[in-house]
């Protein structure tokens, strides 16, 4: 049984907050998120996509570079700079996609909290605008129209309430 993934917006309308727990100590989670050979194993490796390039210079001011290749010769890349590293509990980095469909770079803060062998990861991504955030929620890995997540969520919420 895998743990529940929550994806929510926050009080800040430029943010997305994602949380997920793992049955492992946070040292291992931290390792899986920062050692290239391990990152390649899980990040974006799905639906015929694989991570071809994963370079990580894990120090403040150091950069990382990810490049994925997918079916039909598609590729996607992203890069960023580490701003804070507190092993094994906190990483702050910038992120920019090669063909960004949202303006500006985003700043991601990952926090790992361990309790009784279970690690809860929370990742907060701060975008430069609400539109950028909404666009990401609407279409994670492809340029697309910026759709309003909140508007839809509101209607869906009323539908759920109705069903209950």
């Amino acid at each position, binding site marked *: 049984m895998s743990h529940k*993934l929550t994806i929510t917006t926050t009080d800040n309308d430029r943010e997305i907050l994602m949380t997920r727990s793992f049955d492992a100590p946070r040292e291992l989670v931290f390792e899986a998120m920062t050692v290239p050979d391990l990152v390649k194993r899980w990040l974006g490796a*799905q*639906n015929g996509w694989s991570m071809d390039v994963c370079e990580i210079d894990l120090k403040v001011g150091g950069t990382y570079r990810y490049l994925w290749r*997918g079916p039909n010769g598609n590729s996607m890349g992203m890069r960023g700079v580490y701003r804070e590293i507190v092993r094994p509990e906190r990483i702050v980095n910038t992120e920019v996609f090669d063909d960004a469909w949202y303006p500006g770079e985003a700043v991601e803060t990952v926090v790992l909290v361990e309790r009784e062998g279970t690690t809860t990861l929370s990742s907060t991504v701060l975008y430069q605008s609400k539109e950028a955030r909404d666009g990401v929620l609407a279409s994670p890995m492809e340029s697309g129209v910026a759709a*309003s997540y909140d508007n*839809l969520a509101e209607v869906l919420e*009323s539908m759920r309430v109705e069903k209950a």
Partner: protein
Amino acid sequence: MELSGYSATQGQLDATFAALADPTRRAILARLTQGEASVMELAEPFAMTQPAISKHLKVLEKAGLISRGRDAQRRPCRIEAAALKEAAGWLENYRRFWEANFQSLDALLEEMKARKQAEPIDEEERPK
């Protein structure tokens, strides 16, 4: 990261999201989740004229979010769940993408735990 198949429905989704961008139209949809209603019934809680409501209904109808009954007098409106579901499914891609990533990470962590247990030597393989 499965990306194909979006563009075919992009136009429809654009219309759906544009229709959802207005608070009155969202309120109308929320009301219609409780059952069908006539224009008059819909206008009531909004302190809006019937023509103003009708205008919103046209946008919703064009976006495929509602349909109107044939009854010439009442023409009751009902919500079209399929269009909403499609829009929701599209947003769900973000979730699915991360669900899949984290399930792979679960498997990887199990492997890492097993490896650590198999190697009792306290050898930290962390990069510096």
